[in-house]
């Protein structure tokens, strides 16, 4: 029998109402400076921390908010899988940092994220002692694979690509266990969207299809053959092919890349499309959709706040910030 999320969804419904709404985001964007933008958050869930920090310390606030939300979701859900499936990206990020450190000695504690499923200190000691026994299987297998790839090529990029592939395999495994079509579909779509971005980048770098195949994530609807076939054609051909898929909302972003060589527009569209897919499915009162959706929305919200704070600190005009800001849940 599938796990019953009824209670957790009930709680999530109320928590959703405490997310930042469009008005408040707009007030932050319109604020005269970074301090004032921070003050807009005073009466929100960010309030207790926002009142104690300076504007340039916004990362502390965002991190605390993410951490408390992950803890809350783990606490109210019948299975930690709903949080793990999103937290895995932090584990894999940390693995990338630690593994590259081993070969390249470019260690920086600041870029490790403490939101993963495995405690960061434990992860460090596993890596230092080269003893992975206590580590979850998926992470251990991923490390061994990434190491093997690096030993062959000595190219640190191979570590990233091997770990990215392993990350999505791990995500699909959790999604399968959850027996939720929504969750499977969500991550398959995300893999596709990331693959489209990878394809555009790889093409711009002038790399061959062998490199492309290594960089593509598994499990999407658009398979390797789809992209390989398009390698030697223009981006216009990709746009034409995408018009008849779920991803026709993204073609403007690719067209924008053709003009400006920047993927910022594509990445905004990608975030908005995924959020809108979640929004369409969040009404299920029994499944994990509402809970994963809430976590997703909160991560989206912290991205929005970060974009605004960075913009305000660097004295960007409000319109330029507004263009980059994602939609809200």
């Amino acid at each position: 029998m599938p796990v019953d999320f009824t209670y957790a969804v009930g709680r999530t419904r109320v928590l959703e109402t405490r997310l930042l709404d469009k008005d408040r985001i707009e007030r932050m964007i319109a604020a005269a400076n970074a301090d004032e933008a921070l003050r807009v958050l005073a009466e929100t869930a960010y309030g207790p921390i926002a009142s104690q920090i300076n504007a340039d310390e916004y990362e502390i606030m965002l991190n605390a908010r993410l951490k408390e939300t992950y803890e809350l979701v783990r606490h109210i859900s019948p299975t930690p899988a709903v949080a793990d499936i999103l937290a895995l990206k932090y584990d894999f990020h940390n693995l990338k940092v630690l593994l590259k450190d081993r070969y390249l000695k470019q260690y920086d504690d600041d870029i490790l994220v403490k939101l993963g499923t495995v405690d960061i200190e434990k992860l460090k000691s596993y890596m230092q002692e080269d003893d992975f026994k206590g580590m979850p299987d998926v992470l251990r297998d991923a490390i061994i694979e990434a190491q093997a790839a690096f030993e062959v090529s000595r190219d640190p990029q191979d570590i990233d690509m091997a770990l990215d592939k392993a990350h999505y395999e791990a995500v699909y495994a959790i999604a399968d266990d959850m027996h939720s079509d929504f969750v499977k579909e969500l991550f398959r779509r995300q893999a596709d969207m990331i693959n489209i971005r990878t394809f555009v980048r790889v093409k711009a770098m002038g790399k061959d299809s062998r490199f492309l195949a290594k960089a593509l994530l598994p499990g999407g609807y658009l398979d390797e053959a789809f992209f390989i076939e398009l390698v030697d054609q223009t981006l216009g051909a990709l746009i034409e092919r995408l018009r008849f898929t779920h991803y026709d909302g993204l073609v403007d972003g690719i067209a924008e890349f053709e003009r400006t060589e920047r993927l910022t527009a594509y990445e905004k569209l990608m975030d908005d499309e995924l959020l809108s897919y979640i929004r369409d499915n969040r009404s299920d009162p029994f499944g994990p959709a509402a809970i994963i959706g809430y976590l997703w929305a909160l991560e989206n919200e912290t991205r929005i706040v970060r974009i605004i704070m960075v913009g305000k600190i660097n004295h960007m005009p409000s319109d330029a910030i507004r263009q980059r800001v994602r939609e809200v849940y």
Partner: protein
Amino acid sequence: MELGQFFAFAGIAVATLFAGIGSAVGTSLAGQAAAGVVTEDPDKFGQTLVLQALPGTQGIYGLIIGVIMMSQLGVFGANIPDLSVQQGLMYLAAGCPIGIVGLISGIYQGKAAVASIGIIAKQPGQLGKAIIFPAIVETYAILSLIVSLLMTLGIGV
């Protein structure tokens, strides 16, 4: 005890048992969702309670049919008349509508109530609308109650 009496008792059991299970499951589902909402927002207790109570009616309908059957049969007087097998089976048949429809509609009304509790979580002013969705499911429990009732009264001992 005669076989006819046994079947009549089975009819009482079907009516109260299955309708009761339906209500228990339905109110439990709605109760979990309501508890989730009230944990975050205790002011919503009254509104969510109304929605939780909605799937509780099937059990009451089952009880009504059961009590009417028992009083017809004189169970309370400890002097149960002899019944033919056919009469007994008629009681069993009369218990089925509220028993079966009560079971299924209770569970599904609970699910509709859970969804409506989601409305209350976000739009506390919409209690009226939120009640209507699960209340529609109630219609079918009432229809089966009417049929069970008419059948029971029609048997006549």
